[in-house]
């Protein structure tokens, strides 16, 4: 009885590890908006959807040009609405529906910018090269 329980317990631990380590299934299943990086009039715009997490979770962008982050929300009430970007000192609760523009200055190469939701269970990262 005890041996069986120990085996089941170990199997369940592995299950939890898979849940946490496994890639997110939410990537690319966002709310149908154009995602990614766009350069317009010398300004780089990076769009990220917020709602049940952030998507895309990893973005590759260019360094050395003025960059703005556009956070898109669409009926978002969960944690991803409360956004913290520590490196630029941003702490705000995004409007439930709409677009929020955040100026992140001129990013340097190799210095990624990370956004976390207030409770810390959702995050996204933007790498600059």
């Amino acid at each position, binding site marked *: *009885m*005890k041996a069986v*329980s*120990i085996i*089941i*317990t170990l199997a*369940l*631990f592995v*299950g*939890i590890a898979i*849940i*946490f*380590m496994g890639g*997110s*299934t*939410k990537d690319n*299943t966002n*709310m149908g908006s154009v995602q990614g990086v766009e350069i317009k009039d010398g300004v780089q715009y990076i769009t990220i959807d917020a*709602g*049940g*997490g*952030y998507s895309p*979770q990893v973005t590759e962008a260019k360094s050395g040009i003025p960059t703005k982050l556009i956070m898109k929300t*669409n*009926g*978002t*009430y*969960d*944690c*991803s*609405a*409360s956004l*913290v970007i*520590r490196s630029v000192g941003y*702490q705000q*609760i995004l*409007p*439930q*529906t709409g677009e929020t523009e955040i100026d992140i200055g001129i990013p340097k190469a190799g210095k990624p910018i*990370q956004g*976390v*939701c*207030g*409770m*810390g*269970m*959702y*995050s*996204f990262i933007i790498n600059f090269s």
Partner: protein
Amino acid sequence: MKNVQVDLKRETVTIETNSETDSDQNSKELAELLTSKIKPNGYTLSVEKNIETKSDDGIIWKALPIGLVFLILFFLLQKSGILNFGIGGTTTPTTSFIIGLIASVSSCLAIVGGLVLSLSAKISEDNVSDTKTFLLFHGGRLVSFALLGGVLGLVGNAIGINFTFTAILGLVASIVMLLLGLNLVGVFAKNKVALPSGIFQKITSAFRKIEHKTFTPLVIGFGTFFLPCGFTQSMQIVAISSGSFISGFLIMFAFALGTLPMLAFLSFGSASFAHGKHAPLFFKSAGVVVIGLGLFALLAGLAGLGIISPLFSI
């Protein structure tokens, strides 16, 4: 009394006496007499061995898989994305009620639900008048959400939406959960020797005192308004922009009402299990769940504060 020997491992005390009439009756009386003297230090003495300690072994091996299954179901639910549908349009009390229902099974459950579960199980375990305590907690929660929502609508300003403050409160809550979880599982119970005026004993007795008061459940219910939960914070923003006391009041009240079924289930469910046949199994399983949720909330909270980098994105 000639000689006294204590065997901690077997939890026995051997007492040699000068008494001529050594009978069963006599030793029972002696045990009772001695118990009355050592009870304040947290010991009891009896002729028959306490059965409680015997049946304890092995339960943890049932409780661990049960607790882990609940944790897996919870994390799978979060990962599935079922809860992530957007709610469009303006927020009315009806939509805030629905948002409350969603919030009560979302990742906020990890912190608010985990705290409610751990406190409820602990209160039921300590045989405090649990129904009254739970009613005060849930009542206090509903009333303070409504009133604070009203104030937000009236003032139109962000009280309680200070990120660092809520994050630190969340860390405190997750540490409380971890301690109570370990306590429920029975890690601390292994300390058979009571330290005279030990710090832990002081904490325990302080906690006992707190439980009895009417005030504490009300304050904890009030405090859940400030616990880190994205849904609560979004609703606070809605209440702020609602522009009047009544609308802020209604929105936050409806939201709290939406979270009530799940939280009430957790506390009253704990109580009914705690008084049932499988109480020891329930306490240990609940302890496993609470430790898991506490760890999750702690790691996430540290990431939210920027102390550690986010370990997961669930």
